[in-house]
């Protein structure tokens, strides 16, 4: 049952063949430059041998604490960063494969419209000097995707889809509330009719009532426009709500990947278990849950990670082997991938279903 990663790909291969996006051993190292002469003193391994795939039409969640590299992975997919190593195989609409990690910026331009990004902060991600029409149509203009004549129509229709009133097209971002700004951000991502949307903490900065509206909107758009999402968030309740499969990252590495139900009810990695246990549950009747796990210490420094399994200094099940041998991500059946030496032996608790 257990296979090594480079051969088998985390992610179910269903009937329609190849996944939309396959990430193999993605590495993104940021050099630490020391002194005036720019001597490289080491690397921050923000993403280290990350492999996963995204099927067309699904929503893959990426969770982890801050500094675990989830945003870095997202940015590599839209090629905001050029990965240090590894490959990102993208299935284009006409069924050919391209490695986005290798193509140069000119070739990349044709794929820019297919993979788009929604950002966290609806305040800093919109240029205050551009009006809504300019913000949304910018991508059409710079990529020559649309004739100037049709542009207004295109922008208006995407605004309508995102629940914005097209009459407000000439207004500037400051005139909109946080929720509306996030809708503008979504409209900007969707105006090119993308196939994959990377949502980096897209609802984290929003109020509770607005967050529900945006989550429902994103779900509706996914169905209507046949979108695939990579949903990056630290909020496990939101991830639970919107994702089909979930990947958990810790210090640049993927530690567990499974379908959402399995991961939440039956986690196999101790880190996933402790994350689940830390989530506050909005029900005062369960507040005195026994056996809650409190993680000690802090996330390891990605420029100087611990030996062996990166999680072993904080892991309550750690044994000698964990300090010396780095676990690999392996398939324990039913496409449940986990990077822990003792995954078969541990009996871990997930979230209790109410």
């Amino acid at each position, binding site marked *: 049952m257990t296979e090594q990663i480079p051969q088998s790909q985390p992610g179910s291969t269903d009937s329609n063949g190849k996944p939309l996006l396959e990430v193999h051993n993605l590495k993104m190292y940021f050099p630490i430059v020391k002194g005036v002469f720019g001597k490289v003193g080491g690397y921050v391994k923000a993403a280290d041998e990350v492999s996963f795939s995204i099927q067309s039409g699904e929503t893959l969640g990426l969770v982890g604490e801050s500094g675990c590299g989830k945003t870095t992975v997202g940015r590599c997919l839209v090629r905001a960063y050029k990965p240090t190593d590894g490959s990102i195989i993208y299935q284009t609409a006409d069924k050919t494969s391209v490695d986005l990690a290798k193509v140069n910026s000119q070739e990349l331009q044709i794929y820019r419209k297919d993979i788009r990004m929604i950002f966290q902060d609806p305040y800093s991600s919109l240029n205050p000097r551009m009006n809504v029409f300019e913000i949304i149509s910018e991508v059409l203009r710079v990529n020559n995707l649309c004739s100037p004549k049709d542009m207004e129509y295109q922008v208006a229709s995407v605004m309508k889809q995102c629940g914005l009133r097209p009459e407000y097209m000439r207004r500037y971002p400051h005139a909109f*509330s946080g929720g509306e700004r996030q809708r503008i951000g979504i409209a900007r991502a969707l105006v090119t009719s993308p196939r994959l949307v990377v949502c980096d903490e897209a609802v984290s900065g929003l109020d*509770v009532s607005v967050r529900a509206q945006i989550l429902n909107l994103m779900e509706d758009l996914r169905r209507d426009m046949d979108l695939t999402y990579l949903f990056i968030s630290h909020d496990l309740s939101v991830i639970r709500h919107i994702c089909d499969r979930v990947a958990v990252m810790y210090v640049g590495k993927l530690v567990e990947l499974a379908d959402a139900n399995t991961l*939440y009810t039956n986690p196999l990695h101790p880190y996933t278990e402790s*994350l689940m246990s830390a989530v*506050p*549950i*909005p029900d*005062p*009747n369960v507040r005195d849950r026994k056996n809650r796990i409190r993680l000690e210490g802090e996330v390891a420094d990605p420029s100087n990670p611990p030996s062996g399994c990166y999680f072993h200094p904080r892991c309550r099940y750690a044994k000698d082997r964990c300090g010396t041998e780095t676990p690999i991500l392996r398939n324990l059946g039913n496409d449940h991938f986990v990077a822990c030496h003792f995954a078969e032996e541990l009996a871990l608790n997930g979230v209790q279903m109410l």
Partner: protein
Amino acid sequence: MADNDNILIQVKDLKIHFFTNEGTVRAVDGVTFDIRSGKTLCVVGESGCGKSVTARALLQIVHRPGKIVDGDIIMYRKKGQNQIEEIHISDMEPKGRAIRAVRGKEISMIFQEPMTSLSPMYTVGNQIMETIMLHTSVDKKQARERALEMLGFVGIPRPERIVDEYPFRLSGGMRQRAMIAMALSCNPSLLIADEPTTALDVTTQAQIIDLMQGLQKDYDMGILFITHDLGVVAEIADNVAVMYLGNVVEYSDIHTIFNDPQHPYTQSLLRSIPKVTATREKLEVIEGMVPSPFRRPSGCPFHPRCTKAMPVCSKIEPKTISLNENHQVHCLLFDDDVKNSMRGMAS
């Protein structure tokens, strides 16, 4: 309200208005609650509902153009055996000596972003010592010892090293611990925590919440906890005040708020949160958004978004109605006068 023995702070009909060029914003418009020692009051609400301003008023740190225009904030100070002194914080001069003796000593506050609320120019130890030396008559050496003790107390490893570090060298969780150490260094009777865990990871958040609950038990401290995260509320609150546009729309104990909420806003708010324990389904939403404070709706400010709005809701401002001694609702649905007049119209 029931026993008055351990009431720490009583806020009565507090009104804070902001006088801006565009007009007057009624940021807090008649808020009443009390905080007891050893108990946690959570103030929940969306951004712009006035929860932070209310908390700041307790320390008289409402910034201009904001001003406390009406209402009373009374602090009850234990004075010897069975004697309680009433102190009217709302009457104090914001820059006066009286309030400065209260800040950091009897009431202290921790903020959301520990990076911006700690000074980058001084070491952590220096900043904690400053509070201690201001409020107690100790010399520098004793203050430093106290600071070290506090840092160890809030669970910072190797406090003798951290005490001489600058804030930027610490992680978010450690900074928040340092803030708590500073806030608790003079044994306050009330701790105000303004979204203290919002910027932290869930695992760190769980650590900080544990820490605060432990300290509360040890010192019998009252906590005013401001948050928008209903999960956190369910973990720590004894009482909950739900705010919307400057009003406390519902106030009750934690179990009533979660199991039997009466105000339509509380009900919708609870239904609109995604739950980690539930499977994928469409979320209920509250239509529209929090209106701009300059365009406050007439009557009940929630009526344009309310699912149970009646025609009168846009005309009459609701009063606070006590359903029982520990459950208040700010809604016309429960107003007997309105009910009677409706019945009158129907017949």
